[in-house]
């Protein structure tokens, strides 16, 4: 009876393993997708020839770009280039697609140079400046280092959205809501201080024993062996759980500078 149960349990386990792991390994073939904002006519465009994203990730990245199409075109592109070519490539890519007038953003991942690059064009460059673009990219290069390109891209677009929206309603709102947050945080700190001031800990066992007549006499200790049993357990199967993980720690370095090569654009980049 018991044996049977275990077998069935193992069968179930394997099934669960498969179900859980399956969706992770599925890749989609089609990795170009776009969306056009019907109000502004601006476009969100994902072009992933390097297949860094799965199909579902493409959708997620695209949806994170939608808000930004209120302000301009938004592009995500993956490439494999020689070192130093990314900046020029991104500029050309944007201009080829939208011309030299339309405002927009392009975020590029260059697998050849292992470089992240964010450029703002034609009007947006005054809002997302070179230093802002740099700091945005600085915040996400660890995701790229871990291979989570979707999270990396989504985070870039969210930060762009924050910057643009933040500029839109701008500072007064921040200052007003900070007042509320400050008061709330002050109260929470106050409660913490109050809690610390009023706490009286109960006496510990050690303190209690100090005030007792006590004796801990344990004598004639001996351990008598009554039987030995042995169980076959091959050593190799002993350590199945411990796969050691090696971090592929490339030395990250920041190439903070951006070479402004004419035209109205700003950019920030980061190797990963």
């Amino acid at each position, binding site marked *: 009876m018991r044996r049977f149960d*275990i077998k069935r*349990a*193992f069968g179930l386990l394997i099934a*669960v*393993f498969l179900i*859980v*792991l399956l969706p992770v390994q599925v890749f989609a073939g089609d990795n170009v997708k776009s969306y056009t904002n019907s109000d502004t006519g601006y476009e969100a465009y994902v072009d992933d020839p390097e297949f860094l994203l799965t199909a579902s990730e493409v959708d997620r990245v695209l949806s994170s770009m939608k808000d930004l199409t209120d302000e301009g075109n938004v592009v995500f592109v993956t490439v494999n280039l020689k070192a130093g070519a990314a900046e020029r490539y991104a500029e050309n890519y944007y201009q080829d697609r939208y011309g030299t007038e339309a405002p927009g953003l392009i975020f590029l991942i260059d697998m050849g140079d292992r470089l992240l690059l964010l450029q703002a064009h034609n009007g947006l460059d005054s809002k997302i400046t070179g230093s802002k673009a740099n700091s945005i990219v600085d915040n996400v290069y660890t995701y790229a280092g871990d291979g989570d390109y979707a*999270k990396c891209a*989504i985070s870039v677009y969210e930060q762009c*959205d*924050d*910057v643009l929206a933040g500029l839109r*309603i701008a500072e007064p*709102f*921040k200052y007003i*809501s*900070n*007042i*509320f*947050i*400050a*008061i*709330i*945080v*002050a*109260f929470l*700190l*106050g*409660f913490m*201080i*109050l809690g610390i*001031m*009023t706490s*009286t800990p*109960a*006496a510990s*066992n050690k*303190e*209690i024993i*100090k*005030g*007792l*007549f*006590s*004796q*801990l*006499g*344990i004598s*004639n*200790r*001996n*351990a*008598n*062996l*009554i039987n*030995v*049993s042995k*169980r*076959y*357990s091959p050593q190799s199967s002993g350590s199945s759980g411990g796969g050691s993980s090696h971090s592929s720690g490339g030395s990250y370095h920041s190439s903070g500078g951006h070479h402004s090569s004419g035209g109205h654009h700003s950019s920030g980049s980061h190797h990963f």
Partner: protein
Amino acid sequence: MKCPRCGGELRFDPAIQLLKCDYCENTFIPSDVKDDAIPDAEEHVSQTDKETAGNAKNDHMADTFTPVDTTPLGEAATVEDIVSRTGEEETEVKDKQDAVKDADTDELKLVEYTCPNCGGTLYSVEESLNGFCSYCGSQVMLQSRFSSMKPPKGVIPFKVDKTKCKSIYEDHVKKSFFAPKELKDPNYLEQFRGIYIPYHVYNVDLKGPLDLSGKKEYRRGDYVYTEKYVCHADLDCYFHGLSYDASSSFDDHFSETIAPFDAHSIVPFEPAYLTGFYADMPDVGHECYAKDVTTFAVDEVYKSVSTGWPGGVSLNSGQKSKIPVHMTPRDIYTAFFPIWFLSYKKGDRVAYAVINGESGKISCDMPVNTRKFLAFCFLLAIPVYLLLAVVMPAMNPSKMIALIQTLGCICAFIMMCNVSSIVKKEKRLDDKGYMYKYSNDKDIMEALKKKEEKERKKREKENKKSGGNIWLILAVILCLGQFIFVALCALGYVGYTVLSSGMIQPLLTAVFIWMSFSKAKELTAPRIVYKGGIPLMVAAPLALIFSLVARASDPMFYVSAAIIGTGVIIGLISIVGLKNLLYTRPLPQLAREGGDTNAPV
């Protein structure tokens, strides 16, 4: 008690540990002076008869074992000596045992004072008592009558005198920044009262041979060897002097926090120690804490037994019950322990300050001066604001509102926690002694027992499980781990979006507040919870709606932030009120004394 020299009033002086005459300043050893203050005691004894009369009537222990007259008090026999000696010399001192019996029937005559407001009672050897009640803090004339009780066997005389007690308290209040300033009033400090609280003192022995099962596992090649052992040891352990308060009106919280009393300073009881102080009557049976005592002793012994076996042998779990415990009612006696007691009444709440009269350890209900605390918080908000101005990253407004919503959740959660702690405190669910006395149908005791039973069964189950198929468990854990990991990866994205859109927070806030409300029903004054909870409960979803609307028109963001911000602050202010309830207690009720009899245990 009267001075044998001049007839002046005698009082016990903690500083010198002797009785001192108010008038002629002569000092006397407590056991030398006989109590003749109570009118219905025997007729006046002349000074020369005093010694002999005293000896005849004196407490058996002092009389039979220690010539207290000649021994300096510091070296006087402690009750521990006496109890152990009674054990050893049981046959030898047959007639002395009879003396013990005589002494047991001998009653201690006291004046009983009852508060007409709360029914609290205090006892004294003197017939004068200032008109205020230490339990409810009201300034009333106490009703007095004569009463008698079985004298306790031992007493720890006061070591901290009133002056010292006041300075300990003042130091403590100084550190309590938010305390109401009335607490610092010197006139109020005069109300500190020295009260002897009855404690049960337990002597528990753990003696005899002990055989436990143990094992050792090691690997040789492809085989795992398991050696089974019988681990033998001879125990000769004891814990004498474990004490638990025997008065239901003295909250266990205090006895836990001002503990420990040093059992080494327990001396045989003499009525003279009560002069200048008050006493409370024991009304909780010693069986109430018997389990705690044995658990304490067994745990301590097991801790030492479970390590130190030769050759790396370790004990199997779940063998605590094999440790032999001996405790009979003979090993339990009552003793008076000294406590300084002060009450502070405000409205229908009362706060107590309690100081250990032996060690000076203090434990206080510290009410919060609401105005002072609010002022502090708003002042503190200024530096926090300046810090936020620097630290807070650029955020789009709906995320900012989501952040305030999250703080609202935290506020609602704190509210819930506070309400449930207040319920616990007001119903004194943690107070075993109180429960023992006032849960007539023993419902709660039953519930406690059931809970213990459940926990034991759970433990047994776990033990059984770990003996089962380890591989199966490992596989299940791995599989579950994998599943959780994948689920978290998916949620990592979804969860962040949900949180930053502020959708889930109002829901959570509502749940916490709803839980606070359902708990608050059990409070004496639940209104404060509703007052703080309802605005927050309304503000959270309202703010969400406004922030959704604001996507079309930006000014709505300000409205949304103002709504949720105000809601949370109102909630927080009500929590300050809750803190005040938490750090005080409801006035003791006369009603609950209905079943009270003054019969000693």
